[in-house]
C-alpha cells in the first residue's frame, strides 16, 4: 500500500467551524491562508499534534484551551518540528487576528 499523500491539504479545507463572529473572521482568513496547509484536516501539524496531545486536541481551529499569548509565542518561536514564522510571512497584526480566532472557543482566554 502506497499512501496517497497530501490530496486534501489544499487551502480552504482547514477544519474550521462553518461560521465565526465578525471579530474573528479576519483571523479565520489568516488561519486558512497561512496555517491550514499544515494544520488543516489532513495536515502534518495536525498529525504531529494528534501524536503529542491526542486526536481530540489535534485540530487547532477546534481547540478550546488556547490562549492568545500562547499562540503568539508558538508562532514566533516554533515548537517541536514546527519552524518559527517570520514577521514577513505573518505580520504582528495578522498574528493578533489569528490568536483571537484560535482562542475564540476558550472561555478563559484573556481578551
Amino acid at each position: 500500500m502506497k499512501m496517497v499523500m497530501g490530496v486534501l491539504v489544499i487551502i480552504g479545507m482547514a477544519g474550521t467551524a462553518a461560521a465565526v463572529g465578525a471579530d474573528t473572521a479576519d483571523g479565520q482568513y489568516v488561519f486558512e491562508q497561512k496555517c491550514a496547509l499544515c494544520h488543516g484536516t489532513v495536515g502534518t501539524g495536525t498529525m504531529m499534534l494528534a501524536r503529542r496531545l491526542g486526536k481530540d486536541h489535534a485540530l487547532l481551529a477546534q481547540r478550546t484551551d488556547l490562549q492568545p499569548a500562547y499562540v503568539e509565542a508558538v508562532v514566533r518561536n516554533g515548537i517541536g518540528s514546527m519552524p518559527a514564522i517570520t514577521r514577513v510571512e505573518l505580520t504582528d497584526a495578522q498574528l493578533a487576528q489569528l490568536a483571537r480566532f484560535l482562542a475564540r472557543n476558550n472561555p478563559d482566554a484573556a481578551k
Partner: protein
Amino acid sequence: MELVLPQGIGASAFDAALRDFRTVVGDQWVLATDSDRETYLDAYALGDGHNHAPSAALAPASVEEVQALLRLANRHKVPLWPVGRGKNLGYGSAAPALPGTVVMDMSRMNAIAVEPQFAHALIEPGVGFFDLYNHLKDNQHPLWMSVPGNAWGSVIGNALERGIGYTPFGDHTDMLCGLEVVLPDGEIVRTGMGAMEGNKAWQHYQHGFGPDWAQMFVQSNLGVVTKAGVWLQPEPEMSAKVTVNLPRFEDISWAIDVLAELRRRDVIQHNVVFGNYLHDASVFSQRSDWYTGPGAIPDAVSQKIIDHYGSGWWSFTLRLFGYEGTVKSHMQVLRDMIEPRLGKPLEFTEWRQGDPIEKSARGIPSVLALQIVNWHGGRGGHVGFSPVMPPDGKLALEQARRMKARFEQAGLDYYTSFTMGRRHISNVNLLIYDRDDAPMVARTKQLFSTLIEDSAKAGYAEYRTHPDFMDRIARTYDFNNHALGRLNQRLKTMLDPNGILAPGKNGIGTALKGAAA
C-alpha cells in the same frame, strides 16, 4: 539571541546601514529584533544554528527597492542573503552561509501573470507553490504545475536551487524561461529574449542571442532574480499513475536498469522517486513505534515495517500524461517491461478530464512530507546528502549497500531515494535527527563528512547542499586545480567586488580560501 554583526562591520556602522535600509523599505520591513533574527535561523540546523545566524532581515516589495538595497549594501559593505520564501528546509532554510549576513526576504514580491494560451506564467520570487496552484484554480486556467516534495517554498527559489517535481515539467530549472535579475551593483538585466526592449517572446525562447547567462544565476551569488517565466503543463486529456513496490533490497539492480531505459526512451517523462520503506514509515509513524534499542533499525525490524505498510523495500510511482492513445500505449509498454520482473500486474489509476483531481497524476502542493522530521520526536531536522551518479542498476546496488553500511555505522536509520532524472540518478539520502540530541547531531555531522569522502572516492559529487557543507562540496569539484571554483571566484570578484551578495553561497567566495588556489 546575541546579535552577530557582519564580518568587519562595527555596531554603529551596522546601525547606520539599517537606518538607510529603512528609508527604502520602511520601518516595518527592516526586521532586526532578537525575535526576528531567531525566526530566520535554520529550522533544521544541526545544533542551534547560530553558526549561520543572520544579523537582520529586509523585505523589499519591488525591483526598485531591491536595486536600492543592493546599492546601499555596497555603500555600507553589509552583505545580503536573498531568499524566495526561506523554506529551503534541509538545505539551510533562510539562514545565510556566513553569520552576520542580512537576509533579503523576497516574500512580499508575489505577483503572478499567466498567459493561458501559451501555458506560461511570469512570476516574482515570493510566489509559493500553493499560491500558483490556487491562482490557476481560482482563475480556471486548464494548466498543471509541477511541485516538489515540500511545497511550502517559492517556485522561483526552488527552481534556482535545482529543485525537482514529478511530472514532465519537474526539472524546475529547465522550466524557467526568461529571468529578470538585479546584479550586485544594482543594475537590472533580463536574460533570453527579454534582453530586447519590448520583445514579445521573452517566455517563449530561453536562450536569446549569444551566451545565455540564465544558468549564471542558478545556485549562485551573482544576482538577485526578481522575475522569472515558468512553463506550465496544459491539462492533458488523460493521465495514469501506478505505484510499484519491490520486496527485496537487491531488486534495485534490475529496476533501475529498466527505469533508466524507459527514461532514455521518453516513455517515463518525469523524475521518479525510487525510495526505500522509510519514506512511508517516517510520515505515518515514529521510530519509537517500531524500535527503541541502540543503533540503526535492524533489518528484522525493517521487515516488520515493510510488512505492515506493504511498501516493499523500495517503491516508486510512475505517471503518464497526454492524449489517451499515447497514455494507453505507454501503459502497455510499462506492463511489458515491468510485469514479467514483478510477477504481477500493474494496477494503474486512470484519470480523464472531469474526474476528481486526486485520481490524476498532476502535482498538488503538500507539506505532508515534512512529517518525516518527527521520526525521532523532539525538535526534528534533516539534511540531504545527494550525490549524482549514472543510472545503472549495478552501481545503484553497490551505492545502496555502501551507504546503508555507513548509516548503520553511525547508528542512524537509512533513508534514501535513487531519484531518476532524465540521464542521471540523484541519490538523495536524508539524515534525520533530533536537534536536541547532541550525540545524535554529532554522529550526523560525522556521517555527512564520511559520505562526502566516500562519494568523492567513488567519483560522485553532490548537486546541492546545506550551508554547513557548501565549502567542502565545492572543493570536491577539483578538476585542474579547482578550475571551476577559480572561474566562479573571478566572476564573483568582477561582478561583486565588495562581496555583498550571499558570500559563501555554494562555496563561492569562501571555498578556495586556504585550498589549492
